[in-house]
């Protein structure tokens, strides 16, 4: 199990007031509306949100992978540089070397025309030309072994279509880790995989993270995965951060109505005999209606002046409509943050959310 201590020391990567806007034929869409967060060395940070929350775009910006019609404001500070301002040459020394990324779809992330070995060695030798082929190959085979791909030597000569989805994703992880990066960004890496394969991939990631001590950013919509894998979590909604804190605390003592709504809307499979957690989670009882958050996420072209979640929030106050709450530390637990004007315990807010008939 991952260490669940919150990040300590100096952050390895910081986002400061990051804004991402897309220029579309129908107008400017603000996908990310000024987020600030820190990533600490050695931690596993979960980024949770639904589609449109901006969770993927904010990290694509880090590596300069945004579409052409995107414009950014703010900073992403890594190793003293603002990654958003870097020229592509310098950025390329960081990409794949110090910050690596794994994507959702293993089918399309690998080049179908090159064998695995070639693609892996390319990743290695792009960043270290002095490496000779034999040595590079050895390291690749070693890494494939490390991600539990059987018969690694033979796999080097295989093509992506000869591997299953789970194996392809493991190859992607292997490639990402070849250069021993400081930060690994995983953008929904298991969403397209079966649940048993997902479990294996998560186990591998946990082991590798513990072994190498790199910081991992895990982007997902699945709260269960975050609970199992991550030490800290950021919850995003409509391009903004709404709640940040250590995973267990955020999930057991959520302070933002969206976080609470999300948890109540998530169906949870319980193996009732073997899990003691059941007694603490009455909403997980089968048959109980899920809390369906009314309405839908906002149109990003017509951002309301107040809180983005307000139209769907049962706990909303009049001021929520006109003023947007800033992300601030909780008064009783300063290491956690929320963007909400309401104060009150998790139970009180829950009751209000579910109460109105």
């Amino acid at each position, binding site marked *: 199990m991952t260490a669940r201590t919150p990040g300590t020391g100096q952050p390895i990567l910081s986002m400061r007031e990051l804004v991402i806007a897309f220029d579309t034929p*129908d107008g400017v869409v603000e996908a990310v509306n000024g987020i600030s967060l820190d990533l600490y060395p050695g931690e596993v940070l979960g980024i949770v949100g639904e589609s449109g929350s901006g969770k993927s775009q904010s990290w694509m910006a880090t590596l300069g992978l945004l579409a052409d019609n995107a414009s950014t404001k703010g900073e992403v500070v890594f190793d003293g540089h603002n990654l958003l301002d870097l020229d592509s040459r310098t950025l390329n020394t960081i990409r794949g070397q110090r910050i690596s990324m794994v994507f959702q779809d293993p089918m399309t992330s690998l080049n179908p025309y090159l064998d695995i070995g070639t693609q892996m060695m390319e990743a290695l030798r792009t960043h270290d030309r002095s490496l000779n082929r034999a040595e590079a190959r050895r390291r690749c085979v070693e890494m494939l072994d490390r991600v539990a791909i059987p018969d690694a030597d033979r796999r080097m000569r295989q093509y992506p279509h000869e591997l299953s989805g789970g194996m392809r994703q493991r190859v992607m992880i292997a490639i990402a880790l070849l250069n021993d990066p400081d930060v690994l960004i995983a953008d929904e890496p298991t969403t397209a995989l079966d649940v048993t394969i997902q479990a294996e991939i998560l186990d591998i990631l946990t082991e590798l993270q513990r072994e190498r001590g790199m910081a991992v950013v895990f982007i997902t919509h699945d709260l269960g995965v975050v609970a199992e894998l991550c030490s800290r979590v950021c919850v995003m909604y409509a391009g903004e951060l709404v709640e940040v804190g250590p995973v267990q605390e955020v999930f057991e003592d959520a302070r933002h109505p969206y976080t609470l709504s999300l948890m109540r809307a998530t169906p949870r499979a319980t193996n009732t005999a073997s899990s003691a957690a059941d007694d603490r989670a009455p909403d997980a009882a089968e048959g109980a*209606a899920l809390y369906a958050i*009314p309405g*839908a996420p*906002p*149109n990003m072209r017509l951002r309301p002046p107040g809180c983005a979640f307000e*139209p*769907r929030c049962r706990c909303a106050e009049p001021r929520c409509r006109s003023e947007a709450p800033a992300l601030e530390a909780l008064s009783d637990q300063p290491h956690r943050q929320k963007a909400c004007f309401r104060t009150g315990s998790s139970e009180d807010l829950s009751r209000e959310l579910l109460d*109105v008939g």
Partner: protein
Amino acid sequence: MSLLNRTNNQAALEAAVTTLQSRSLTQLAIARFLRNRVAVGASIVLLILVALAVFAPVFELLTGYPMEFQDRDFYSGKPPNWEAQHYLGTDYNGRDILVRTMFGMRISMMVALVAATVALVIGISYGAISGLAGGMVDTIMMRILDLLYSFPLTLIAVIALAYFGRNIMIVFVIIGLVEWQLMARVIRGQVLSLRNAEFIEAARATGVRPFGILVRHIVPNVTGVAIVYMTLIIPEVILVESFLGYLGLGVQEPDTSLGVLISEGANAIEQKPWMTYGPGIFLVVLLMALNFLGDGLRDAFDPKDR
């Protein structure tokens, strides 16, 4: 907590549903097309050329020379002479090239339109049937297509010339043999991909009859592609017609086409280059405009860009 709790839902729904006017896919495509400046420019050029062709008789008035009129003072091909109002010069028979080019363009366009439509109809039918039938029928139909594709155009044209002489029907037949194949393949491809689309499966699950599926679900989703390829087939047809005209097939005197004009001029291209330039430039511009238009339409209809 009921989903049907309208007051909450309504407000949020209204915020979410686009406040823009409902736009069908066709309207979206038109909007995309209009943003493409090259395509719009090409459309304008094309419209101008069509207008010129339609109003070809105007040029007879403008220059004072009817199409068949042989100007004695300008026999055996004279260079452009603005005072005499032979703006593009004359051909061997003293006929004004500008006027002949305009009429030639008219014929070329008419032939192109008719032949392309024939190619379209045959092509869509063949492609749709092949794609929908699938299995052995599809295989056989495609192999027939491959076979036809391998017939050399020149050979057929020469044989036809030997047999039938100069006859405009040859042009249609030959073009028909060649040009519908692209449409058939394209439509078949589109039908094949549609067959596996989830909304087609949904229609089957509903109980819609195969004919209903064809008419209500497949055809509307195929017309876009058909239009695009139509605009790409037309330039080819014009070229084929020009080629046939060059060979001496096709339209009868005194009618002429761009191809015939170019072929007449090509014989004397070193001494009397203007005979080729006139019709040649118009042909090139016409073909380029059609190609850019076709590209623009294809980009506009691209389903990935939804």
